[in-house]
């Protein structure tokens, strides 16, 4: 029973981690929280659903959805975000992402209605027995997919020139420009990757939660908890934080009677508040140096 809970927690946690990763990539690129990250992931899930409804296999639908959301997200950065970043308009920036969240949600409801849709599971049904626990294929598939994405991104950042440019632009934007690196381009790439990873998270979680316009609201809160716990500027932290939040959420829901499944979301808020009070930079984040 406990093992079962742990495995379930790791699987949903991996999805929270993926969405948290999207939040972190955007934060690193533009130093802003993208409150629309959840709705962008929702849009990705709907695009996947729509393509399967038109007869495409779910895997191909997922790839197209990731590409589409990647491009859309990079476009949003270019048109709505960059002009504000360049003028250091931090508060308007947050308001813009909040506005996008509301607008995207309404748009999705308008296009696809508020009726629940069923997204095919990517990894089929059934379970595998692991150490006495029945682990669903779906759970295993989710964890492996997120792991694969993490490895690809780690390789991108660690071993490619694009990755080096992106990290240089995060470490010292002005020096990066002075070295011939276009920080505009690295920002757009960061947003683009975030959009694609978000679409993946949305499509992975849709079969678990059933697809409807309110689906990503709670998931976004968990993802913010994960990103806060891991450290807002740490991609590794986002994934570790996601899994931790998934496990804590599951265990608290089952073993703490007061929490139950109804008020599980409070767990996310408790984590956010606790981290901000005790270790604001998160587990893997870098402490911000503030010079007085």
């Amino acid at each position, binding site marked *: 029973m406990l093992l079962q809970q742990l495995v379930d927690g790791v699987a949903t946690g991996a999805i929270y981690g993926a969405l948290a990763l999207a939040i972190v990539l955007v934060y690193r690129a533009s130093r802003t929280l993208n409150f629309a990250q959840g709705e962008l992931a929702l849009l990705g899930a709907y695009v996947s659903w729509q393509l399967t409804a038109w007869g495409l296999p779910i895997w191909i639908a997922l790839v197209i959805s990731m590409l589409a959301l990647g491009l859309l997200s990079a476009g949003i950065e270019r048109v709505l975000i960059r002009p504000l970043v360049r003028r250091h308009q931090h508060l308007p920036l947050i308001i813009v992402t909040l506005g996008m969240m509301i607008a995207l949600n309404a748009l999705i409801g308008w296009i696809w209605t508020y009726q629940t849709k069923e997204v095919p599971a990517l990894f089929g049904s059934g379970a595998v027995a692991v150490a006495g626990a029945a682990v669903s294929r779906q759970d295993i598939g989710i964890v492996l997919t997120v792991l694969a994405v993490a490895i690809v991104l780690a390789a991108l950042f660690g071993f490619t*020139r694009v990755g*080096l*440019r992106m*990290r*240089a632009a*995060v*470490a*010292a934007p*002005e*020096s*990066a*420009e*002075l*070295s*011939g*690196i*276009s*920080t*505009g381009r690295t920002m757009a790439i960061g947003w683009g990757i975030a959009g694609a990873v978000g679409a993946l998270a949305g499509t992975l979680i849709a079969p678990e939660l059933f697809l409807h316009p309110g689906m990503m609201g709670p998931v976004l809160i968990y993802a913010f908890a994960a990103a806060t716990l891991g450290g807002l500027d740490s991609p590794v932290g986002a994934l570790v934080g996601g899994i931790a939040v998934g496990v804590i959420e599951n265990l608290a829901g089952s073993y703490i009677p007061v929490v139950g499944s109804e008020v599980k979301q409070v767990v996310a808020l408790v984590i956010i508040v606790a981290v901000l009070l005790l270790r604001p930079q998160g587990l893997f984040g*870098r402490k911000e140096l503030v010079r007085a």
Partner: protein
Amino acid sequence: MSLLSIDVASAGYGPVTVLRDVALEIAAGGRLVVLGANGAGKTTLLRTISGLCRVEGSIRLDGRELTGMPTHRVAASGIAHVPQGRGTFGDLTVRENLLAGGSTRPRREAAADAAQWLERFPRLAERASRPASGLSGGEQQLLAIARAFMARPRVVLLDEPSLGLAPKITDEVFATLDEIGRETGTAMLVVEQNAELALGIAEEAVVIESGTITVRGSATELRDNDDVRRAYLGV
């Protein structure tokens, strides 16, 4: 014909104008030092060249207009800039800092050049795989200089390379600059408060006061100029 020609009517930040009527020329391989007190506009001059300030006027590299270009394009067209306070990428390793400096060049060439710079500075080579934030001030400055030369620029702009360094380290930094400049034939525009050292490696010099050029001449002339001696050489 001069390599870099600057003819700026006004430059500054937003509504604030810092530079007025500044005209300068640097020949290929030439070395110009800009002297001046704190706040005179020396840093603004370099930032204007790199496209980081509002500017009216013309800045040409080899006849090509640079004003209006975004900073990374100015850099890519042949101007490297070592900013005040070095501006190294603290989270990146020393080797990655060098590679980032060469990011406008073909991958293989950049890797080969990075290896050469590490060979040249054993102290950087020892720490090649560690984050640059762990380096001392002098090592950071050498890294920032090497990173600038990684781009194989035609002109290098240096903003107060001596800032915050012990005198002995400063001597070393300037000797290294002199050496690299000689080897590569790269033109240099050095902004410096340490006039003695800067005049030592320069051919020409100007003094900026309140955003405009008040004295200009050869490095030797400025060294013998009484006003300059009083104001900047402390003798």
